């Protein structure tokens, strides 16, 4: 690809230091790229580290976490910045819609004020214009701008989620992280929100990192997919290659568990066994204990992430580049 990636995540490793229990390695050696205007899907079972990836990039984890690796934003390593410098990048360049955004709005501040604050905070425009823009943003996500003066408790769940999206767009960021933006919403509203995201992306040309459990949504919206297992990247590549020609046994199982992409209700739990605990990670391939095509070396030797076709990476001993 000729274009420079916006964001290059390299060897991202995150550990949680648990008092008296040592370190839990939630992420290990996670690498992927985000190109302008692209949507990249982040999938995997619950607890595999999807949220941790986003939070590590934004450095929003608690003190007991330790991040290492590189996160290059337009070539600049975000992990090398001071906390103060990092603040300049949050929201202005990379905004996030949190998982379970229900409580992500301040209950005693009007929604409009919370959006407006994001704009003025980064000094993008004077207060007057920021207020006008707040109205536009609300209208953009389908909320009448008069309701900006209302408080979060006066909004429905779907409206709150849309308000969060409006807030995320406030500074016209280059990248939007959307962490399961539709869980806890009913199917109709889910579809509306996803459509909204798609429209906004076309209009504003931002890149989206979408975390979801719904492979149907991935197939529909994403250009690239990162499949994660137990804190590591299992497979990474263009969405059509991954869906039509999955190389990693875990990806194959995931897709099998999801026979009809039009009916995204099947659960990932249909893979026998449970994901590894962070405190007792297997020494070799993390998927080995549940793998249906496990080789002898899988139990002892972790497979490297290899480029098996241009732009398509997989971490499995069965794959030869």
């Amino acid at each position, binding site marked *: 690809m000729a274009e420079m990636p916006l964001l*290059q995540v390299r060897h991202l490793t995150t550990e949680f230091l648990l008092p008296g229990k040592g370190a839990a390695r939630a992420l290990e050696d996670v690498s992927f790229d985000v190109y302008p205007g692209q949507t990249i899907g982040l999938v995997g079972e619950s607890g595999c580290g999807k949220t941790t990836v986003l939070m590590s990039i934004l450095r929003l984890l608690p003190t007991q976490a330790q991040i290492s690796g590189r996160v290059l934003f337009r070539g600049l390593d975000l*992990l090398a910045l001071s906390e103060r410098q990092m603040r300049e990048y949050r929201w202005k360049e990379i905004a996030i819609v949190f998982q379970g955004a229900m409580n992500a709005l301040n209950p005693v501040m009007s929604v409009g004020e919370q959006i407006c604050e994001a704009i003025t905070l980064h000094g993008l425009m004077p207060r007057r214009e920021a207020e006008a823009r707040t109205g536009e943003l609300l209208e953009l996500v389908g909320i009448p701008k008069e309701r900006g003066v209302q408080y979060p408790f006066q909004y429905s769940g779907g409206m709150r989620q849309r308000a969060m999206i409006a807030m995320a767009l406030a500074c016209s960021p280059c990248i939007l992280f959307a962490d399961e933006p539709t869980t806890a919403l009913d199917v109709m509203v889910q579809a509306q929100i996803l459509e909204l995201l798609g429209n906004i992306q076309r209009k504003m040309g931002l890149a989206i990192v979408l975390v979801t459990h719904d492979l149907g949504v991935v197939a529909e919206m994403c250009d690239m997919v990162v499949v994660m297992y137990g804190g590591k990247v299992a497979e990474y590549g263009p969405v059509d290659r991954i869906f039509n020609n999955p190389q990693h046994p875990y990806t194959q199982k995931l897709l099998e568990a999801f026979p009809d992409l039009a009916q995204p209700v099947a659960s990932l739990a249909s893979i026998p066994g449970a994901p590894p605990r962070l405190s007792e990670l297997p020494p070799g391939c993390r998927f080995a204990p549940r793998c249906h095509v496990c080789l002898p070396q899988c139990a002892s030797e972790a497979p490297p992430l290899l480029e098996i076709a241009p732009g398509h990476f997989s971490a499995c001993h069965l794959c030869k580049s």
Partner: protein
Amino acid sequence: MRESWLLFWRNLREFWRVFRHNRMGMIGAFLLLSAVLIALFAPFLSPYEPSLVIRDATGRGLTFAPPAVHGPLGTDDAGRDVWTQLVYGARISLLVGLLAGFIAMFIGSLLGILAGYFGGWIDTLIMRVTDVLLVIPDLPLMLVLVATLRQMELKISPLVVLILVIGLLYWTSTARLVRSQVLSIKERQFVARARAIGAGHFHIIRRHILPQLMPLIVANTVLILSTAILIESGLSFLGLGDPTQPSWGTMLNFAFDRNAISNGAWWFYLPPGLAIVWVSLGCVLLGNVLEEMLNPRLTAHHLEGDVRVRPLEGEGAYG
């Protein structure tokens, strides 16, 4: 039976294993236990009777004698040994506190269980009563009550009056706590199952709810105990104690009334106060630690500090 005892011991051992490493809890337990031991062994800790007046060589009462002149803690305004008063006072203070605390705990737990388990109008009634009690200023109410009860010449000991008044007024926090706990226990599966197979209310409360409630009640009782001891000392300081059986609060009442301060008799007014702080601090530390151990509230803290980052040097993957 044997088996449940075994389980009990195992749980206790497990508890001790964790508790032992909690510094606050250990300090609290030490403060409280030492006071209880002093109260129990008071006669062995002092050669005098508490009411005995110490006399000098000429037979005059030795009043306001500083520690350098007499005993470890000198004498009071009437020439009695302060140390002796202090160790015997521990008996009164702890006894009143303990009994009042138990009454409060009993009423609070009972009403809390009733309100939480049965809900409906019983719940509403009990909760409204606690709300009312919470708003009426407690000390004035107690003073008026105690004063009236004494005026009625009922021939009951002032200490009993204190115990009853404190016990009957300080159950509200326990009731609220127990009620919310019962509500959450009631949500759980096995209560519904017990109901479904036709178990009676009493049976369910005794077999399923009380056992789970017990640790919480114990922790709360320890906290209530500190309140009861503090309140007792206050009421006694205001002169509502039994002058013939002085508690620490009564000692302070004597000290204040008989000008220990202007006489510079610090050995008279410092020790009883320190003793009260000693015990109530012990209860608070112990109670808080027990509560914390029962339901740990290790919450997130989004402003605690910044995450540690270690950027990598050199080139990354993907060429």
